[in-house]
C-alpha cells in the first residue's frame, strides 16, 4: 500500500465538487482511500484519521490531495483521473479570449463562462443573484449583488446577524429584496432556486421563513392541484426583533402587486411579538387574502396550513396521498428515532411528538431513547454537503437505528426537487434492504416524501422505491409523524 499526500497552495474548488472528485477517485480499482479537499482544520483532522500524514504547511486556502493505493500503477491512474477532473472544471471555466467584453453571455439552460464577481453589466443582463458560499464569506457577495442592482437569494447560513440587518436595510433602500440568509428554497417567476420543487403555476404566493416548510406546503398544494405563483424565502431570522421583518414586509407588498397572485401565505418561525404585530397589520392592509401560518400557534402543523389555504380558496378538504406497502414492517414498542434532512420538519415532528411522548433528545444521534436529529444542522454539515445532497451520514445512522432492537419506529423525510439528490429514496431503501438481509427483525419505517410528480426524481417512482422496502410513505409530514407515534404507542392509526 502506498500513500500520496500533496498540497496545492491557492487552488480552490467548492466542497461539493471536491467530494465528487474524491468519490470518483475512491471508486477506481486499486485505490483504497482518497481525500481531495480544502485544507481546513476539519479536513486535516479527517486526513489524519484516514491514516495519512498531516502536511506541515497547509491552510484553508490550499487544496490537499491524499490518495492511498495498492501500487504505483493504481496511484498513477488515480492521479491522471484527478488531473482530468480538476482540469475538467477549468476547461469549463476558461473561455480563452472569448467574452472580452467581460464574461461570455449565458446560454439558455447552459452554464456560461464564470466571471469573478457579481456585476450586472458583466453578465449579459443578470437579474437575480444566488449566493451559497460559506456563511462568513457570504456578505461581500451579497453586497456585490445589491451594488449591481440585483435582488439576491442567500442560501448560505451562519451569516452574522448584523450583516443580515445591514443587507436588508440597504436592499430596502434600493428597492431590492434579500431572500435569506439560510434561505433553502425560492420560486421566483418560474425559476426554482436552492432546493426547489417543480410545481404548476397558480394563484398562491408564499412568503417563507423556512425552506423545507415551504417545500412541504408547496407539495401538498400541488397534490391538491393548486399551483404557486411565487415562493419568496426570507430567512429564519426575518421576523426577529433585530431584522424587523424587513424582507417579509417587502415580499408581502410584492405579492400584493403581482397580478399572478390571488392569495398570500406567510410561513413563519416563532416571531418576535412586536414584529408579528407589524406583519399582521401589513397583511390586513393587502388587497388579497392572507393566511398567516405560524406552525404551533395559529396552526398545529404545515398540513393544517395547507388545509386552510384550500379552505380560503373555497376548495373542499381532502385527504393527502399515502403509499402503503403490501407487507408493512410490523409495529413494535421502543424508541422513536427521527432522522431528518430538513430542520423545519424535524421541528414539526418535535412539536407533535413531544405532546405524546414527553422527553425527546434533539440532534444527538448517539442518545438513547426517543431522538430527533436534523442532519442539516451545522454540526453535521461542517466540511461536508447537506444531507439532501449527500445522504451518507444519515444512511449510516439509519442502519444503526434499524439494527437496534431498542428502536420502536424510524421516521425519515425524503425531499425531492431540483438541487436535491438524484434519488434520495435509494440510499434509504438500500439500507432497509441491507439490514433486512442480515435477518434482523426491523422496526417499522415511516417516511414523509416531500415532492411532486413533476420533480426530476418523480414522486411515484420515489414512493415505489420506499414502499418496496416496506416503508410507509406519506406526502403529509404531520400525518407521517402521527402514524409513527400510533405505531409506537399501539393506538390505531
Amino acid at each position, binding site marked *: 500500500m502506498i500513500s500520496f499526500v500533496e498540497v496545492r497552495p491557492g487552488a480552490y474548488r467548492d466542497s461539493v465538487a471536491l467530494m465528487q472528485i474524491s468519490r470518483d477517485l475512491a471508486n477506481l480499482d486499486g485505490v483504497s482511500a482518497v481525500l481531495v479537499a480544502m485544507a481546513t482544520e476539519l479536513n486535516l483532522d479527517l486526513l489524519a484519521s484516514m491514516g495519512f500524514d498531516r502536511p506541515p504547511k497547509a491552510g*484553508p486556502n490550499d487544496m490537499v490531495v491524499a490518495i492511498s493505493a495498492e501500487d504505483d500503477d493504481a496511484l498513477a491512474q488515480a492521479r491522471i483521473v484527478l488531473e482530468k477532473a480538476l482540469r475538467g472544471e477549468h476547461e469549463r471555466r476558461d473561455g480563452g479570449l472569448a467574452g472580452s467584453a467581460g464574461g461570455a453571455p449565458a446560454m439558455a439552460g447552459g452554464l456560461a463562462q464564470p466571471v*469573478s464577481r457579481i456585476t450586472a453589466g458583466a453578465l449579459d443582463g443578470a437579474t437575480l*443573484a444566488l449566493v*451559497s458560499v460559506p456563511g462568513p464569506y457570504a456578505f461581500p457577495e451579497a453586497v456585490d449583488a445589491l451594488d449591481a442592482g440585483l435582488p439576491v437569494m442567500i442560501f448560505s447560513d451562519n451569516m452574522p446577524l448584523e450583516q443580515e440587518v445591514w443587507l436588508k436595510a440597504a436592499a430596502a433602500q434600493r428597492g431590492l429584496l434579500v431572500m435569506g440568509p439560510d434561505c433553502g428554497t425560492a420560486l421566483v*417567476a418560474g425559476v426554482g432556486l436552492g432546493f426547489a420543487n417543480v410545481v404548476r403555476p397558480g394563484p398562491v404566493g408564499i412568503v417563507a421563513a423556512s425552506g423545507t416548510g415551504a417545500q412541504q406546503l408547496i407539495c401538498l398544494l400541488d397534490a391538491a392541484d393548486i399551483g404557486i405563483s411565487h415562493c419568496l424565502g426570507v430567512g429564519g431570522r426575518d421576523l426577529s426583533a433585530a431584522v424587523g421583518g424587513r424582507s417579509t414586509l417587502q415580499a408581502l407588498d410584492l405579492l400584493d402587486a403581482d397580478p399572478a397572485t390571488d392569495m398570500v401565505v406567510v410561513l413563519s418561525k416563532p416571531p418576535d411579538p412586536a414584529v408579528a404585530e407589524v406583519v399582521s397589520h401589513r397583511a390586513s392592509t393587502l388587497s388579497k387574502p392572507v393566511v398567516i401560518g405560524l406552525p404551533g400557534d395559529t396552526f398545529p402543523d404545515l398540513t393544517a396550513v395547507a388545509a386552510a389555504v384550500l379552505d380560503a380558496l373555497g376548495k373542499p378538504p381532502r385527504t393527502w396521498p399515502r403509499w402503503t406497502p403490501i407487507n408493512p414492517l410490523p409495529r413494535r414498542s421502543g424508541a422513536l428515532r427521527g432522522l431528518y434532512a430538513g430542520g423545519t420538519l424535524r421541528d414539526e415532528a418535535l412539536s407533535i411528538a413531544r405532546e405524546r411522548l414527553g422527553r425527546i433528545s434533539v440532534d444527538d444521534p448517539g442518545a438513547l431513547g426517543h431522538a430527533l436529529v436534523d442532519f442539516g444542522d451545522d454540526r453535521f454539515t461542517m466540511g461536508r454537503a447537506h444531507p439532501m445532497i449527500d445522504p451518507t451520514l444519515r444512511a449510516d445512522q439509519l442502519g444503526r437505528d434499524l439494527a437496534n432492537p431498542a428502536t420502536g419506529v424510524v421516521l425519515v423525510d425524503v425531499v425531492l426537487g431540483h438541487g436535491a439528490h438524484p434519488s434520495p429514496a435509494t440510499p434509504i431503501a438500500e439500507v432497509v434492504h441491507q439490514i433486512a438481509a442480515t435477518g434482523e427483525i426491523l422496526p417499522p419505517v415511516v417516511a414523509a416524501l416531500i415532492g411532486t410528480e413533476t420533480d426530476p426524481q418523480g414522486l411515484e417512482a420515489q414512493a415505489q422505491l420506499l414502499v418496496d422496502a416496506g416503508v410507509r410513505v406519506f406526502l403529509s409530514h404531520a400525518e407521517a409523524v402521527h402514524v409513527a407515534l400510533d405505531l409506537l404507542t399501539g393506538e390505531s392509526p
Partner: protein
Amino acid sequence: MTADGSLPSEEANAAGLLAEPHRVVAVGAGFLAEAISSQAVAVSTVDWRPPVVDADPLARVLADPRRREANSAALGRILASRAHLVDLAPARDALRLEPGVLLHAGPPIDWERASGPLRGALIGAALFEGLAGTSAEAEKRLAEEITLVPCHERSTVGPMAGVVSPSMWMFVLEDPSTGQRSYCSLNEGLGKVLRYGAYSPDVIERLDWMSSVLGPLLRDAIRRNGPYDVSSTVAQMVQMGDEGHNRNRAGTLMFLRDILPYLAESTAPPRDVAAVTRFIGGNDHFFLNLVMPACKLALDAARDLPGSTLVVAMARNGTDFGIQVAGTGDAWFTAPAAVPEGLYLGAYGAEDANPDIGDSAITETAGLGGFAMAAAPAIVRFVGGAVADAIRTTQEMYEITLGEHPLYQVPVLGFRGTPVGIDTTRVVRTGLLPQINTGIAGKIAGMGQVGAGLVRPPIECFIQALDALAAAAPELAVSSA
C-alpha cells in the same frame, strides 16, 4: 457601479423580480447553479475563492455607508482628469525644493535602509548639486544631513530611484479644469543613468546638459506652443502599441513630432536643437516622464475621500513597496518589495537585480502599464509570454478595478477602456494582484539598469490598507439598522 463610475439607477428593481424571465448569477456551490441550469434558465457562475483576509474587516469596509459614493466620486475624478504640459522649470522653482532636501521614489525611507540603486542616485544627485566632491563625501552628507522626502508628498513622481534635486528640470503638468499640478523630472534614457543608480561622470555630465540645454529649450518650445495635451497623446499611444510604462515609443515620437516645429523656430543654436531632437528621438522612454505625472494628476484628484477603497498610489523605493488609498489619507501601507521577473541585459542575471523600485507603478494605478498590456503585446516578451498572456493580463485586471478608462481604449479588446481604479477590497477578495511592468535596477549603487520585466505588489500592503479602512469605518452593529 458602472464602468464610468456612476451608480446604477435605483429605480425599484423589485417589481421586476416577479415579472421578468430571470438570468441568474450564482456564486458558491456548483450544484445549485446546475439545478438552475437544468430548468433551462440562463445562469452565470462566479469563479469564487475565499478572500485572503478575515471576514470581519472586509465586511466592515464593504458596509461603510460612505463607500459607494466615495468610490464613485474617486473614479469619476480620475476619469475626468486631463493633463496638459504647461511649463518646465528647475525643481527649486517648480517645487520650491529647498537645498538639503532630495526627493525619492516610493514610500518614506532613510539612508540607512536605502537600497543600492537609490543610494547611487542620491550620491549622483549630491555630486550634481555640488553638495559633495566625491562619492564618499556624498555618502557621509546623505547619512548625516540631507533630508529624504518621497516624491509623492510633493505632487511629484519619479521613475526608478526617482531622485529629484533642486537643479533638476521638471515637467509641470496641470489639469485645465481644476488647476491641480503635478511634476516629473526629464527622462535621461536607458542604461547607465541616475534613476537606475549610476553616478559616474558621464551620468553627471548628461544631467548638466539636460539642465542647461534640454530643459530650457523644451520650456521655450512649450511656452511658444502653448500647453501640450498629454492626455490626448496617451490615448493615442495606447492604440499604437504602447502601454505607457515599459513601452513609450509611439508617445515619444508623437511628442517629438509635435514639439519639433517649435524647437526649430527657436533662437537656440542649431547644434543644440539637433542635440535635443536626437536625444528625444533616441530615447524610447522619453515620454514615460509625461505619462507618469499625467497619471499622478488623475490619482491625486481622487485622494482624501473617506470611505473610498480606491488605490491612489503604488510606489516602490527599492526596499519597500507602498500603497496609498483614497479613504486613508497620506498613510502608506508597506511591505518588502519583490524582485521583478524578466529579461536581463548582457551578462546580467537575476542575482544582480535589486528589488522593485520607482514611482512608475503610478501608470498601473491609473489604468496603464500592466493594466493596458493587451494594447502592447510586445511587452510580454520580457517574460517569454505570448500575446494571449497580454490579453489575459488586462482582462484579469478588470476583476480588481472599479471602472474602465474611456480615453485609454484597447483595439484588440474591441476598444474597451483599460481597467482603472484598483479596489482594495477586490484585491483581498480575489487574491489577484496588480500587474506591474517595470525596469530592473542593479542592486549595487552605480550599476545602472540590468533588465526589465514584470512584478506584482506584496499582498500585505492591501491587507494593511483594508485593516486601516475597517478601522476608519463605522462598526457594523445590529442597531446600526
